[in-house]
């Protein structure tokens, strides 16, 4: 296309900067760094040892990565195509169980097929996509709110079926499923990753040695750190692929479907086909998120506590916080939700205890509220701090209402990415100069108020 290195460079630059790629990537990096600093500071403030501080940061990184993955997947369906899928938890369950069943130890209970991990993960995505295909039929025919009900029902069908005794030999039913393959980080460091007592291999020895000299003797933590970093890489890949999906004629049709399906059809777009494709792709990515999070990450799932519809709503809230319709917003929303709204409150109780306030610990809400009549708010404060888990949900609920009333475009602002593989404001190569001079501003990606 273009021969001289200079032209080539300029083409590259246009393509890369299309959609504000560089700025957005920088924003995400800065956010991640800021969260690392914040959580390290929290750990240090609480006077954890080095391993404890690192553990705090690793835990947060893992959660940020898995949320970002799930939110990116949902953004493709809801943010782009307007398909209101509130069965995310169900598709994640399909992914987690599939990777366990496909790649789990054939000798474990419930027995797995023992297939290599990459096949297990791809299989999990494929199975989630196929379940998504089944769910896509309602998506084609139903109004958005009916689709919401159908998908939440679908996710409960999946969860309650995983819990049902007739399939206990496959799923573990109420016992949950634990026979997951080792995660790749463990495989990297151990001779026999499936065995808890296994000795580290050469790489493991070396890496563990480095960390030990830094004061981190817990090898599990090093494995977790490696896995969390690996997840960040995967988020990066999915982010780039999602951007490409969005910033293309394909993504343009998805946006058009969200805006006005009849118009899209009148312009010759077979909207049903696009809806099926994006629904399946989104579900595949949700399956991937489930496989990497609850499956390989947590190594243990139980449908009575995992994959409840609440999980779907977390992911929705994260997307709404970040601004639906934007891939960068999805990652940001996932990070902000996971780190600041979900994880940070769990440290509050510990942080408060360092103030030496000796808050009263009332036994019940009644004991907490009645002193208010004698103008003593401390029992209520103590009660709230002690019940931060419930408080967190209340705050999330109120936040959601507030967002819908005041910031329907997302907490982080309006972040619509222009759906095209080229910078539309830049005219043809030959005419690029003139266009640029007569006000052709580079647009897309950057928040555009």
């Amino acid at each position, binding site marked *: 296309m273009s021969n001289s290195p200079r032209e080539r460079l300029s083409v590259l630059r246009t393509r890369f900067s299309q959609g504000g790629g560089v700025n957005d990537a920088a924003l995400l990096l800065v956010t991640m760094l800021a969260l690392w600093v914040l959580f390290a500071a929290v750990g240090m403030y609480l006077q954890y040892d080095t391993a404890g501080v690192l553990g705090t940061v690793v835990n947060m990184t893992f959660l940020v990565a898995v949320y970002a993955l799930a939110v990116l997947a949902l953004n493709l369906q809801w943010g782009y195509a307007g398909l209101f899928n509130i069965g995310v938890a169900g598709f994640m369950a399909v992914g987690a169980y599939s990777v366990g069943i496909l790649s789990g130890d054939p000798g474990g209970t419930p027995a797995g097929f023992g297939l290599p991990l990459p096949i297990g993960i791809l299989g999990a995505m494929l199975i989630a996509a196929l379940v998504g295909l089944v769910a896509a039929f309602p998506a084609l025919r139903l109004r958005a*709110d009916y689709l919401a009900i159908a998908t939440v029902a679908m996710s409960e069908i999946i969860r309650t079926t995983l819990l049902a005794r007739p399939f206990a030999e496959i799923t573990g039913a109420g016992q949950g499923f634990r026979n997951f393959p080792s995660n790749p980080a463990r495989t990297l460091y151990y001779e026999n990753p499936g065995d808890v007592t296994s000795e580290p291999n050469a790489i493991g020895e070396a890496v563990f040695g480095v960390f030990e000299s830094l004061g981190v003797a817990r090898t599990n933590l090093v494995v977790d750190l490696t896995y969390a970093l690996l997840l960040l890489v995967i988020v990066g890949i999915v982010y780039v692929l999602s951007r490409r999906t969005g910033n293309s004629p394909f993504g343009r049709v998805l946006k058009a479907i969200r805006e006005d399906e009849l118009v899209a059809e009148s312009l010759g777009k077979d909207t049903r086909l696009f809806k099926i494709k994006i629904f399946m792709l989104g579900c595949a990515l949700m399956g991937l998120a489930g496989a990497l999070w609850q499956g390989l990450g947590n190594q243990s799932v139980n449908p009575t506590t995992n994959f409840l519809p609440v999980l779907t709503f977390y992911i929705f809230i994260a997307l709404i916080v970040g601004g639906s319709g934007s891939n960068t917003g999805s990652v940001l929303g996932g990070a902000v939700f996971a780190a600041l709204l979900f994880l940070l409150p769990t440290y509050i109780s510990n942080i408060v205890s360092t103030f030496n306030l000796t808050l009263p610990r009332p036994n019940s809400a009644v004991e907490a509220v009645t002193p208010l009549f004698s103008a003593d708010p401390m029992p209520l404060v103590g009660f709230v701090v002690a019940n931060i888990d419930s408080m967190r949900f209340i705050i999330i*609920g109120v936040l959601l209402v507030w967002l819908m009333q005041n910031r329907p475009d997302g907490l982080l602002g309006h972040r619509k990415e222009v759906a095209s593989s080229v910078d539309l404001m830049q005219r043809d190569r030959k005419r690029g100069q003139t266009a640029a001079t007569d006000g052709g501003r580079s647009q897309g990606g950057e928040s555009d108020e």
Partner: protein
Amino acid sequence: MAVSDRTSWGGRFLDNPAAFVAGAVAVLLLLDLVRRLVTGALGPATLMTYLWTGLVIGLIYGLAGIGLSLTYSILNFANFAHGEYVSVGAFSGWSTAYIVAGGSIATLGDLFLLRPPAGRVGVSITSAPLAVVVGLVVGVVVTVAMALVLDRIVYRPMRGAEGISLLIASIGVAFAVRYLLALVYGTGRPGVTAGTRRFFVGDTLGLGRFIVDSHQIAIIVASLGLMLGVHLLLTRTKLGKSMRAMADNEDLARVTGIPTERVIRSTWILGGGLAGAAGFLVVLTQGTIAYNIGWLLLLLIFAAVILGGIGSVYGAMVGGVVIGIAQQASSIWLRGPWSDMTLPVTFALLIVILLVRPQGIYGGVETT
């Protein structure tokens, strides 16, 4: 018009086979039911028990469903917080019932928080009828008050917003209310009702003996009474007629000058009150109470409403009873470990109804 026309033929390839399969399965199950009755594999008493308990729980679904159906059609959004209205009715009602019945066996605070064991307080329709009635009334009143307050602070500023925004806001409301209840009452699942009288009926009718307890009778009396009240309200009063007009067609109602805000308020009063009553009554039959009691019922209530046809009050009642009986009667086929599949099958039924007949049994009212 254009939209409904398109949906109907967009699905013309799917529509008929799916409806055919669904119909065929229903007929097969019915034939199998007759076979089991004839061969004696299924005793008439067992069947009557399923029908009876299904009717009881189904009426509760129906009660809760009326409110959901009305808000869905009049305010134009699926209220995912409706389950929490049910929970609030349950907790406020049972706290009251405990306080009325408990007297001095524990502090007021502990009674309010439902702390003393059910056996010591002894609330049942036979041992403490006053506590049950007062509890029901307070449950209704508190839920109505909450519905109105929530409308004022959450939904009214969003009037005219699209259904999905309201739906998401209602998810936020659901979270806040559910975990507020968890904060106050804890996350346990205490039993709160005392045992009550049981009767064996059916002998004289030749249906075999099956058990009916007085709580079930109380639930049936209360729900039928409330439903009759709703029926009279909707057919005999001007307000009720405007509500039905709004449910059918909001634009039409606006043009003809029906005071919309008043109708909306009445909708919340009616829907919230019935949800509160359903919450109180469901505890009466289940015996236990938990902060997520309404959330667990929400999908079943949705199933009832969709089966009956969104916007149709009578459809919600009938849909509730059908879902209740279907759930109970499914034990005829789903036995032993397979009984775990009752919920998945019920939800699958919900999706099938959405696909095959989204307008419900009482069709016609399809507010697009």
